[in-house]
């Protein structure tokens, strides 16, 4: 991303907080159907929703994206390639100058698909992997999923597709593997992308046990300061900015301002981590379509107003972290105008302690194909030691989840910002 002045003195971030005519980064979950059942799935995916947008409705939505000049969409799910019209929709989008980056677990990246992808200028691929070895990865993503992802990367590399993304959700168990992920990405000619574990979807069930410890947050920050220019983060870690220097990126919560999510049934949420009625702005099937939801929904207009710093107002780091992630606060039962649960000054931990055992908001709707699973960490995990032996216990049936995750400027290579003010 490059900022090209001359221009007014207003910081770009301040412009973005007031919203744009169209999103910069739009995530579109094509289906809730998934052949995996990752324990941290943001969209609680599993079963297809019978109300899913039809092929014709999807194409009409792409037409709208083209009219709004949404340059590209991040397609996820569920596993989006499961839809029988997936390639038809990808072709339709790229024919209409809407670029596509899609997230996949790799299970449908055959040699033929890899060759096809390598030949396209307008399609990018993101392979999800949450451990640098099968033990760590499969504990979260399921038996055999490491091998599947590696096979997909081998096929993409063999087909000559360089620069695809290797996407990792940073957890307590893989935070020590960041160098290995980077080596892996280099090996396949891919680019590493790291994102934050959110307590959204099924992630709410495992967040306590999987999110990096306070010491690991510091370790992650130091790593990003050292290697951050080599990886994409989708602006995921702006809550760590309180440690010192800002990380590469805009360090902005883009929810409803420059980012949003369209789910498989056409519901529009403020961001991919906020699948809950509280953050539901409207539905693309309503008259006025997506354009009207983006430009006129009460929720989005409200998010574009100046937000209260609340309990964080007296903190000297507020300008850096801006109170952190709205969805992380919401799904851990913390007030939105207070510290992020992973606040680097420890205010979040105190807030979680003070919160006590309340019933946290349950992300709506649940499309899990099985009773929800909870990874129960064994003794050492509190202190950050990898604990792939986490055992899983079924929980009561609840909401859905998603495998891909996006944020404000994900996918944009960080570029020089020579004249940003």
């Amino acid at each position, binding site marked *: *991303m*490059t*900022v*090209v*002045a*001359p*221009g*007014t003195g*207003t910081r*770009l971030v301040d*412009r973005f907080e007031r919203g*744009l*005519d*169209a999103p*910069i980064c739009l995530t579109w979950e094509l289906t809730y159907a998934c052949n995996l059942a990752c324990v941290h799935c943001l969209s609680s995916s599993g079963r297809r929703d019978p109300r899913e947008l039809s092929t014709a409705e999807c194409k009409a939505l792409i037409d709208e994206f083209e009219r709004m*000049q949404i*340059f*590209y969409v991040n397609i996820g799910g569920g596993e989006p390639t499961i839809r029988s019209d997936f390639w038809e929709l990808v072709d339709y989008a790229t024919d209409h*100058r809407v*670029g596509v980056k899609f997230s996949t677990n790799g299970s449908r990246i055959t040699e033929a698909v890899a060759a096809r*992808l*390598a*030949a*396209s*200028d*307008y*399609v*990018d691929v993101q392979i999800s992997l949450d451990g640098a070895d099968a033990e760590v990865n499969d504990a979260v993503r399921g038996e055999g999923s490491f091998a599947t992802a590696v096979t997909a990367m081998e096929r993409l590399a063999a087909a*000559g*597709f*360089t*620069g695809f993304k290797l996407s990792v959700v940073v957890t307590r168990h893989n935070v020590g593997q960041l160098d290995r992920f980077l080596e892996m990405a280099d090996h396949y000619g891919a680019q590493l992308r790291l994102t934050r574990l959110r307590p959204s979807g099924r992630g709410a069930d495992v967040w306590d046990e999987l999110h990096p410890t306070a010491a690991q947050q510091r370790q992650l920050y130091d790593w990003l300061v050292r290697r951050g220019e080599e990886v994409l983060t989708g602006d995921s870690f702006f809550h760590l900015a309180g440690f010192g220097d800002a990380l590469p990126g805009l360090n902005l919560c883009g929810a409803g301002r420059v980012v949003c999510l369209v789910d498989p049934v056409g519901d529009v949420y403020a961001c991919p981590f906020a699948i809950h009625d509280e953050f539901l702005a409207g539905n693309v099937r309503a008259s006025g379509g997506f354009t009207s939801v983006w430009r006129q929904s009460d929720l989005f207009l409200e998010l574009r107003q100046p937000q209260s710093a609340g309990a964080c107002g007296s903190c000297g780091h507020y300008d850096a972290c801006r109170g952190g992630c709205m969805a992380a606060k919401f799904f851990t039962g913390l007030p939105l105008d207070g510290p992020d649960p992973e606040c680097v000054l420890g205010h979040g931990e105190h807030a979680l302690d003070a919160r006590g055992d309340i019933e946290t908001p349950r992300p709506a709707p649940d499309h899990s194909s099985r009773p929800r699973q909870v990874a129960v960490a064994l003794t050492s995990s509190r202190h950050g030691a990898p604990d792939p032996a986490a055992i899983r216990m079924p929980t009561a049936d609840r909401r859905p989840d998603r495998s891909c995750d996006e944020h404000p*400027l994900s*996918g*944009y*290579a960080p*570029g020089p910002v*020579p*004249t940003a003010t």
Partner: protein
Amino acid sequence: MPPLSPPSAAPFDPSRPYALHPQVALRPESFGALAYHFGTRRLSFLKSRTLLAVVESLADQPSGLEACRSAGVPAEELGDYERALGLLVDSGMICERVA
């Protein structure tokens, strides 16, 4: 697909003709515009409406300098705009036109 590196173009020369790269789309916004390059998948933010007008007029003007003048850039700001166009050349958003 392999993301293309921005072509290693010669530095911006205000006396030469330019145009928007064919793989670049411009989206006007209140602060200026977003420019997206489908080949490199890079995004740039043009921080003023005047700069947008300059970029839009490039293809119809005999030189980068004339594009600035036709978009109403005051003489004392020409240096700033030339630097901005230089950045857009470096990132492959605009390229020299074969006249």
